[in-house]
């Protein structure tokens, strides 16, 4: 909480001013020295920040290009329904490399057996 100066007794105000009075007045030269010392450091950050920004833009652009190029496989998230089997069947039919985590029957490869397994999981009614 800030207490305005005029709420303090005049004697206390004087005592405080005396206690914090500086013997050496700040000169304009000192300001110039401080500013001169600070400016080069600030200038060093400008090209570094610009380079980081450009690198970020280039990386983002590259990722966007890879994701949107015609040959790229679109991201697919498991649904647990027939779309999973359909997705793997389409990828296999297109000759695409299918990620190993689609090895539903755990035989070490992703093939039609996994498509059947995923389809059966989708329609399962027994517990």
């Amino acid at each position: 909480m800030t207490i305005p100066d005029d709420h303090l007794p005049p004697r206390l105000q004087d005592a405080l001013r005396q206690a914090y009075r500086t013997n050496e007045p700040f000169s304009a030269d000192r300001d110039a020295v401080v500013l001169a010392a600070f400016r080069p450091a600030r200038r060093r950050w400008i090209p570094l920040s610009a380079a980081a920004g450009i690198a970020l833009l280039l990386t983002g652009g590259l990722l966007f290009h890879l994701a949107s190029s015609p040959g790229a496989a679109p991201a697919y998230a498991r649904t647990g329904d027939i779309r999973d089997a359909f997705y793997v069947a389409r990828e296999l039919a297109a000759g695409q490399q299918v990620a190993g985590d689609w090895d539903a029957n755990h035989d070490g490869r992703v093939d039609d057996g996994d498509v059947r397994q995923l389809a059966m999981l989708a329609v399962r009614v027994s517990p």
Partner: protein
Amino acid sequence: MRILRWVMVVLLLTTLVRAADQAAPAADGRTTFLATDLFLDMGGASLGAYQVEVNAPHSLLVGVEGGALAGFREAPIYDPAALSHGRVIVAAFHVGGASPQGRIRVARLHWQLPAGVDPAEITARLVVATDAAGNMLQPTLRVAPFAGDRP
């Protein structure tokens, strides 16, 4: 040995008679059989995959057939455990070649209905349908009693 053979024959005949008694419609009409068709109206979109859940709380599923058009003629995928129960999930997909459009009969289900069961109790819910590229679609699903041979 001969006695054992006769025992096996009697057991086999008993099993067959019991199975026939359960499966065939009773003469007094206690049990009826009904086939229901599942139709998807795709409009202008082409069907790539579908999944439908069918419920018939007081009926028993006794058979599943495929649809009428290329790509969906084979019997859809279903859990054999659904046979002799009142709930089944059927699904199928088609990869490669032209996918059918318009109103498509995707499956035919055969039911055994005990006496007094209304066929209207058989209901279906579309779980998912996509086009050939896997994009989601919202076709209209209809369940209709099989009304003779027509696509």
